[in-house]
């Protein structure tokens, strides 16, 4: 498009990819049961038609366009089209209820909105009168929308048709050419564990330089492929499915629906894969449940070869020397167990796998490494265009998050908080200069809000906890809730845990059971239950969870600094913590303060010694309506280990 050969913007990258990678697949999507592909050249044409259509509909440079929907190629293309038309795409979490969406759409004053389907259009229309500047809603899937008032609505394909006929190619080119490395590329709202979401503005330079450096770090090439299944509003998806895909030209596959992801993963067999620890935990839980149900011989075969793999697999991956016999046995195991298992999981081709967002249990992490899957950890945040640290091949461990990514500088301040500076550092928080100033200093250093330290020998960063969550107990002992919660969550039966104790004389916990794992356990032990609530309150489930809590106490007691964090009392929640109820962020992180307020009655019972407590909780259904559930919960006591008895003694 432009005369310059620089690749500073996504418009330039796309034009270059259309000639450089031409007929190589850029996007795939399963539709009507068959994988459809679009080449880079085709994508460039589609994007161009969309951009012309947007301009024709009256989009002006600098506008914000919200994108609400699941991972669909057309929505990814619309992001590029919005940029080409001089505007800024703002992907929004599609599972947000209308209320949450209203804040973001109003804050970014979106004039145009790209909505995937009727469900999203309905949400936008519901809050429409509060959105002053809203001009157009463009929808992808026309189903059910025929009878709607089409004053503001237009289908994406109609818009493209409009663009093809408009003859405003010169205008679109002029707008794309006016973009520079410093133009805003995308605005992403942080999930916000505290307070209102903030709009993080990232420039073309932020995204493209970060993508370039990290593609090189992991040798990502045009013949790699990924499955785009994480929310488009999350910075990671933008970096992987747009940033790195445009820079290296690899193929992005979109699943048929959210429910078929696992199946699609197996069919696509991506070489580059990211998933949060939750995903890997869930997968492992499923494998273990199915092995419990398998025949004796199969079970023996699995156990035998998995033991071997745990010893040899990680060493092989790290390129360390292994004896010939062990290698041979690993190969046999690969033929009999590891290979078929990886194939079933859809991970056989994974060359580079990452997990991040939370700590991952060492056993879970080692399980995948043992199978020969190159799973690594990275540490990042939206403000950094994801990458702060990552683990290089050959230096992978469960307890660190790796060395600084290319171009990133790290600093730990006196309080232990981690700071970084990099080409990926965000431009600003939209319409929020105070927060920008308090997060990023004049020299470009950004506070992560996490406490951590750098290992002197290896240079790897280790994260302890959110800096603001680390507190002191009444007796002055250190309190690090995440540390204990992670230990609890490593048990397959425990899905989520929230530990309390800051400023108190003992630690207590709320626990969410994992319905898949505990349900299967109940089935095998002939425990009948009719609902989640009934299972969660079952005395035998309490016994099992108590055993887990006591094991964790024993393990926590070994750490002198944190031995005060042993859990004295706990209760199993009668409902799953849920994003729709505001208890989790949209990226599934616990919102501590909200849970503390909402369940103040339960928390009270944990500390006043009562054996059980009656509670009524408001729940929000997916369509935003509210209902109430009530339950009487038992409070469980757990034994603690001596070390804490000394610390916690009154």
């Amino acid at each position, binding site marked *: 498009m432009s005369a310059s050969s620089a690749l500073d913007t996504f418009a330039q990258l796309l034009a270059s990819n259309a000639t450089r990678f031409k007929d190589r697949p850029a996007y795939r999507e399963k539709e*009507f*049961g068959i994988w459809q592909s679009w080449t880079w050249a085709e994508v460039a044409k589609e994007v161009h038609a969309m951009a012309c259509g947007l301009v024709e509909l009256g989009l002006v440079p600098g506008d914000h366009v919200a994108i609400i929907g699941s991972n669909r190629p057309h929505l990814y293309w619309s992001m590029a089209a919005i940029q080409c038309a001089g505007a800024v795409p703002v992907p929004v979490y599609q599972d947000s209820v209308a209320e949450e969406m209203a804040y973001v759409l109003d804050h970014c004053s979106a004039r145009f909105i790209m909505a995937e389907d009727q469900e999203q259009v309905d949400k936008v229309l519901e809050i429409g009168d509060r959105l002053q500047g809203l001009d157009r809603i463009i929808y992808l899937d026309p189903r*059910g929308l025929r009878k709607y008032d089409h004053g503001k609505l237009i289908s994406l394909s109609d818009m493209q048709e409009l663009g093809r006929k408009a003859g405003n190619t010169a205008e679109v080119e002029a707008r794309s050419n006016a973009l520079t490395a410093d133009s805003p590329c995308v605005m992403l709202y942080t999930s916000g564990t505290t307070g209102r979401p903030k709009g993080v503005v990232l420039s073309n330079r932020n995204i493209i330089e970060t993508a370039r450096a990290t593609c090189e770090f992991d040798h990502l090439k045009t013949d790699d492929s990924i499955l785009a299944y994480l929310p488009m509003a999350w910075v990671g998806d933008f970096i992987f499915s747009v940033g790195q895909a445009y820079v290296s030209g690899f193929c992005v596959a979109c699943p048929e629906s959210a429910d078929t992801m696992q199946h699609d993963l197996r069919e696509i067999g991506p070489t580059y894969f990211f998933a949060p620890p939750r995903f890997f935990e869930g997968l492992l839980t499923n494998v273990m449940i199915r092995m419990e149900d398998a025949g004796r011989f199969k079970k023996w075969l699995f156990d035998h070869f998995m033991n071997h793999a745990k010893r040899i697999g990680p060493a092989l991956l790290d390129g360390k020397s292994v004896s010939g016999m062990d290698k041979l046995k690993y190969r046999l195991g690969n033929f009999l167990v590891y290979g078929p298992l990886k194939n079933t999981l859809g991970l056989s081709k994974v060359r580079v796998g990452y997990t991040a967002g939370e700590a991952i249990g060492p056993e879970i992490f080692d399980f995948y490494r043992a199978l020969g899957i190159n799973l690594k950890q990275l540490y990042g945040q939206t403000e950094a265009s994801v990458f702060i640290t990552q683990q290089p091949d050959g230096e992978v461990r469960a307890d660190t998050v790796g060395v600084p990514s290319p171009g990133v500088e790290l600093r730990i301040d006196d309080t232990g908080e981690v700071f970084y500076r990099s080409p990926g550092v965000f431009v600003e928080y939209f319409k929020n200069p105070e927060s920008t100033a308090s997060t990023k200093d004049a020299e470009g250093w950004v506070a992560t809000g996490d406490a951590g330290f750098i290992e002197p020998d290896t240079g790897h960063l280790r994260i302890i906890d959110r800096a603001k969550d680390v507190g002191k107990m009444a007796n002055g002992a250190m309190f690090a809730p995440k540390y204990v919660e992670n230990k609890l969550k490593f048990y397959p039966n425990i899905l989520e845990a929230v530990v309390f104790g800051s400023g108190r004389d003992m630690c207590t916990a709320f626990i969410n059971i994992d319905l898949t794992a505990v349900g299967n356990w109940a089935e095998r032990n002939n425990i009948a239950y009719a609902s989640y609530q009934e299972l969660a309150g079952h005395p035998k489930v309490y016994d099992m969870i108590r055993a887990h809590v006591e094991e964790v106490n024993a393990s926590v007691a070994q750490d002198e600094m944190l031995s005060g964090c042993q859990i004295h009392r706990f209760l199993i929640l009668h409902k799953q913590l849920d994003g729709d109820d505001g208890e989790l962020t949209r990226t599934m992180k616990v919102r501590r303060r909200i849970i503390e307020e909402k369940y103040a009655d339960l928390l009270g019972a944990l500390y006043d010694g009562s054996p059980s407590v009656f509670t009524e909780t408001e729940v929000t259904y997916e369509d935003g309506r509210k209902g109430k559930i009530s339950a009487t919960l038992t409070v469980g006591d757990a034994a603690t280990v001596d070390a804490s008895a000394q610390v916690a003694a009154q």
Partner: protein
Amino acid sequence: MKDGYTTPDGRVIGDVVMEMKNITLKFGGVTAIKDISFDIREGEIRAIIGPNGAGKSSMLNVINGFYHPQEGEVWFRGEKRGPMKPHQIARLGIARTFQNIALFSGMSTLDNIMTGRFTKMTSGLLAQAIWKGKAEREEVENREVVEKIIDFLEIQSIRKTPVGRLPYGLQKRVELGRALAAEPKLLLLDEPMAGMNVEEKEDMSRFILDVNDEFGTTIALIEHDMGVVMDISDRVVVMDYGAKIGDGTPDEVRKDQAVIDAYLGVSHD
């Protein structure tokens, strides 16, 4: 007969597709249906409601041609319809679902819906066995239609799952899929929401409205759940003890004193 009408939400309802004239159906000495007349128009959602034992299912079976009334006439698209076999009815473009799910529980969702394409398969046994020419072409075409239905009903994730393993609400959806696979002009639904929870009912209502909207299918349904019926139908026939006691739009029926007394309970105003 008056011409078609326009619904409050702006859909244009066309001519009469099916007309029941003075139908009486007896089983031995029991009269299940007493002298009932009503019509079903092109593009509308027509409900038949009534308390238990009112004769709703019998009525649906008469429409479907499964029962042959002793008295009265059934007119379909301007022609009087004589006694017919179920497969002949199917070829006329009438498909149905059942009150008690009637799927092949050992077969996958995909295969079950594929059976709904039965009337569109014309290649012979030999051609199907050697899988060449017409048989292969037909299979591809039929599969395409079925995949569109799977997409429409959002059941991609259970495409290959045996339906016996599916929860009740999903089985109902698969059954609707199979009926849709016949690309019916007239779709008969026998208690599509029976035994469902609120969320499943809402989903099913959505799908029924979408079928009507997207494919222009005329729908006749029997339902117990008054709320659902009043929300989604254009016109309602009310039956009690085999007789018709009301007929009209949901609002008209709601105000009809005979209907209130017989079915909705006595008003407290």
